[in-house]
């Protein structure tokens, strides 16, 4: 059994709701769709029990009806586990992962600015990458954003 298949099996055995939700796309690439309310359990298990010791990036998505977030975890620089959560578009919110990876701070700020996804537990700090005077509730990576900032 390959490392990728072992990860799939371990995740599916530990979290029964992940059955058929873990996909091995190719060598070194595993994707899993995780229910939002269970995300922290799966993330915690992946970091503490499956050895995913690095976070490559966090991607925010506008999926039309909903928003999404992908956490791109990495094990010893080799294998990436991509955990996707879907979020309600009206009140999109995830919990911070800076308690696991302090370097996630900037990736989470980017998601807040560009997609308007709130991050619970993220320390108060500066905007990234938008300027401090950027209007509130104006998020350029939303699909309905058409190229001009709303000015108050």
């Amino acid at each position, binding site marked *: 059994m390959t490392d990728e298949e072992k990860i799939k099996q371990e995740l599916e055995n530990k979290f029964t709701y992940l059955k058929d939700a873990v996909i091995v796309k190719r060598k070194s690439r595993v994707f899993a769709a995780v229910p939002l309310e269970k995300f922290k359990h799966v993330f915690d298990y992946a970091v503490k029990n499956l050895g995913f010791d690095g976070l490559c990036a966090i991607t925010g998505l506008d999926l039309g009806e909903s928003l999404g977030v992908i956490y791109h975890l990495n094990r010893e620089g080799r294998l990436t586990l991509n955990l996707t959560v879907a979020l309600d578009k009206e009140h999109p919110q995830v919990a911070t992962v800076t308690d696991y990876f302090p*370097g996630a701070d900037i990736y989470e700020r980017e998601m807040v600015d560009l997609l308007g996804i709130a991050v619970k537990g993220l320390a108060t700090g500066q905007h990234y990458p938008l300027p401090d005077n950027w209007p509130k509730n104006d998020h350029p990576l939303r699909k309905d954003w058409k190229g001009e900032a709303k000015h108050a």
Partner: protein
Amino acid sequence: MHDSGEVIIPIGPQHPALKEPECFLISLRGEKITAASIKLGYNHRGIEKACESRTYIQDLYLIERICGICSHSHSTCFVQAVEEIAGIEIPGRAKYIRTLIGELERIHSHLLWLGVAGHEIGFDTLLMYTWRDREVVMDILASLTGNRVNYGINTVGGVRRDIKPDHQEKILKAMDLLEERTKYYIELGSSESTLIKRLSKVGMLSRADAKNLGAVGPTARASGIERDVRKDDPYAAYAELDFKVITSDKCDVYGRTLVRLGELMQSFSLVRQVMQKIPSGPITVKTGRKIPSGEAVSRYEAPRGEDFHYVRANGTEMPERVKVRAPTLANIQAVSKMLEDRYLADLPIVIAAIDPCFSCTDRMVTLHDQTRHKKNTFAWETIRRKSISWYRQQGVDFKALNKKMAKLF
């Protein structure tokens, strides 16, 4: 000044000591830095958003312009993701050509960095030497691709230009010359006490901090983390090539210097292996303009570290989402840690040591003569000849070195 005696100095976004727009708020007690906070985003151009309204081929050229130095890194990282979604297997020769351009790019980038590092510590002779040597590799990139930067070599399904037989000899001779020069810099780096003392114990980043803060590339490897995407998650032709991942346990700017020097030597070897092993055959496969629905993650070891792209396709000619995490974003977060309890005078070299990106020069210059309303266009060679002649008039002559180099070419 605060009641505590601390002074906060804003450095940037426009500042003579910075080569690119970032803002560092430095808290000082006397000459010592007590805290540093970094504000980024001044150069954000909305490229990810722009990609969503352009075709994959247009995006390839746009993405190549994210960085003037690592242009091939970004375009390869992006095109690999697109090809994976479309299920395209590119020809072996194309994989080797991508690897060749990638290593030549690393050589030019590391030589550029060495010069910048020299400049930041007042060792401008090193800047002059390394940037002169860098021209050798820039010329090769120009003759292979037509451009000094933004090579436009990649396309979906392979590469756009083949290596011609006369390139081979030129490239191998250049590697010999640059290897000789790099050995000199390695000797300099291991024996020149002023250089060693200026860089040692400066910008410390422990192994644990490098890991926690997600540092990548030479910054992480100089803190003892043996990670390199070329080895760990091979792409292009790297799985068929032999090379070492260079690390150092010094955790300081000196360690970062040694790692990059060691990596230059590995790159010369990789280029020679590519020239020896490159298979014959086509350089591209035909593909459609539409890419089927799907998603892919692509990783690439850029000169500054892991470049990361995520692409999501929706079955049309344009992507649904393109996410780019350039290595500098991963490394910039470690800078605050590196500056803790250091002197203000160390700030320029500590920032430079992560090798943040700044734009490279154009290949062609257009001068507008305001008085004559006339436009003159100079080719790169013309500018070079003019500059050599200008320096000669000032009494600076490189004739002896030119003769030595002429023998090699």
